[in-house]
């Protein structure tokens, strides 16, 4: 994804808390480009002293020339959300033009859109676009508590019965097998949510025998089966022991400690940053979409950009050789 990003200046026009931990940001760009459904923008953030970027999906079609993103405040993560939450209206921001890694295919006979938590952000624009195009569409929107379901009332206003809210605290997980069975042949499933939801969806999709390309998904790099915990990485080949803090990725920690790494997407898709696991005494929390379920179970490698160890330590090898 060696995409060139052209940064432009933008102004934070307003913020609004949608739930206890989801905040809407209205960003006024210098040069507006109408986004396609599923698009995101990159935002320049500061993590401590360090400049970094975060990608946030655009919410809705931006009909008034304002980009809207929603950011969930996450404790113990890398700090992008905390930075965003620190901004007050009037703040200047560096942003990219809209990009799209989650393209909505048009003209399909049926659509099922599934959002988990903050994964609702790209799904909103897709649902509205499909509604306006007169497409057959259903949206399942899951969150832990009813009070976490940001945008649900707005969506229900447009979709009516075609929106189903799933409160996982009481209703449990979405039964993908059942939901996929209701999708017309040739219909597409779009999923944006935590890795657990995505794996459920992939498993059920595969079992249904439907074409692999008709399951579309986007994941956020910071969700796993376990909460972020600090862990220790030992690299015998380099004689290094490296602490990965709760709020940074293993890849970044290795790079900071001088380990020569190659990587590209940094969101668990391309597999370039994967390292062989020599030993793990905690549970490896695979958060990537690069390895298959069987590969993850075999625990031979992990994608260091997103995956972590839940409490404990891991011993890995690198590509370094003498000479």
């Amino acid at each position, binding site marked *: 994804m060696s995409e060139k990003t052209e940064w432009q200046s933008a102004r934070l026009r307003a913020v609004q808390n949608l739930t206890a931990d989801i905040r809407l940001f209205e960003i006024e760009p210098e040069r507006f480009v109408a986004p396609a459904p599923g698009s995101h923008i990159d935002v320049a953030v500061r993590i401590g002293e360090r400049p970094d970027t975060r990608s946030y999906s655009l919410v809705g079609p931006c009909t008034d020339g304002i980009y809207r993103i929603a950011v969930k405040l996450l404790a113990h993560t890398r700090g992008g959300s905390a930075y965003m939450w620190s901004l007050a209206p009037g703040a200047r921001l560096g942003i990219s033009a809209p990009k799209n890694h989650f393209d909505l295919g048009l003209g399909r006979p049926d659509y099922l859109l599934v959002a988990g938590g903050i994964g609702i952000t790209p799904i909103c624009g897709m649902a509205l676009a499909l509604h306006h195009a007169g497409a057959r569409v259903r949206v399942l929107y899951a969150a832990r508590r009813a009070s976490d379901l940001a945008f649900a009332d707005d969506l229900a206003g447009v979709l009516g019965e075609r929106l189903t809210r799933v409160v996982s605290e009481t209703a449990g997980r979405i039964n993908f097998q059942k939901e996929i069975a209701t999708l017309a042949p040739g219909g597409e499933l779009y999923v944006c949510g935590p890795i657990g939801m995505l794996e459920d969806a992939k498993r059920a999709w595969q079992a249904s025998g439907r074409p692999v390309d008709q399951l579309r998904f986007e994941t956020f790099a910071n969700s796993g089966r376990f909460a972020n915990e600090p862990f220790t990485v030992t690299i015998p080949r380099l004689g290094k022991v490296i602490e990965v803090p709760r709020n940074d990725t293993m890849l970044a920690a290795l790079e900071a400690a001088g380990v020569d790494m190659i990587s590209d997407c940094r969101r668990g898709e391309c597999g370039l940053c994967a390292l062989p696991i020599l030993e793990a005494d905690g549970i490896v929390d695979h958060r990537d979409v690069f*390895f298959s379920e069987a590969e993850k179970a075999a625990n031979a490698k992990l994608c260091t950009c997103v995956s972590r160890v839940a409490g404990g330590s891991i011993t890995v090898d690198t590509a370094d050789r003498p000479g």
Partner: protein
Amino acid sequence: MSDQKPFPLNAWYAAAWSHEVARALTARTICNKDVVLYRRADGRVAALEDACWHRLLPLSMGRLQDDEVVCGYHGLVFNAAGRCTFMPAQKTINPSACVHAYPAVERHRLVWIWPGDSALADPALVPDFHWNDGTEWVGEGGTFYGLKCDYRLVIDNLMDLTHETYVHAGSIGHDAILESPFDVTHTDRTATVTRWMIGIEPPPFWAKLLGRPGPVDRWQIIYFQAPSVIVGDVGVTLTGTGAREGDRSQGVNGAFLAAITPATETSCHYHWNFVRNFRRDDAELTRAIQTGHVNDGKGVYDQDHVVLEAQQKAIDRNPRMPFYNLNIDAGALWARRMIDRMLAAEQTQMHRPSEAAE
């Protein structure tokens, strides 16, 4: 401030003749976009971005496998929707791996593609080109692929036929074209140039087709549909038999057809045909008319080809020199006005929120 090209993207453009798109990969550049075309097993045409997601090798250098394209470099496979369905040496497929799938429709014996926003690609917007269907009107045309000129120069050429007198002397050219007044009318998306030449000697091409002696009434009714389709209703009747009033029974009627597709800013694909509604079963005549237009440099369109490319070269060498316009350019100027309006609307659409999305 804009990097906008001189062609609207939100429009249907002819990319190929239907018979040219088979179970094989065909590369085309349309509006600066490299596209690979192929026919699926069910007969529908697929049009994909002609650059592999992975390393940008043109997919047209790969091969067709069932309804999917296999990249000729590392074997990534893309289906007709542009989604990757195979990646080498891994168990999963990167969810971001897609190439753009251009909306494509087949209509009037041509394949049309929509290079702009797919959400706006309404097949009802395909230009009316029914003269090319091969039913009521017959003729066999062709395409100048990669004609080295701005597509608008072809529009200029066809919207003003005084050039026939000079470029096509001896076939369809005639001094009467210079002397006859013309009318130009327009709607929001079309422009029409109408010229009647009453009681003239027919030029050789038409005299032969009419096959009857005596002066004729000749008409040229040129109909432009933005951004780049032109149909020229042309013919002659024996003079005074009421053609201008609507009775063309004492004459012969043809139509020149042009679906001009920008390739780059300075090249285009000129899909042309010349059709007629008389002697429709006369295959020999069809062939004669075809070679009359394009014949190894000797046809009338070959003559235009030479002029258009030379004109583009001159423009390239004199980039600051303006065009001056004459009265005869009214039709071309209305056509360009409509193209400019489409371009302006696209700029607004892209950079301002659209009402339609609300």
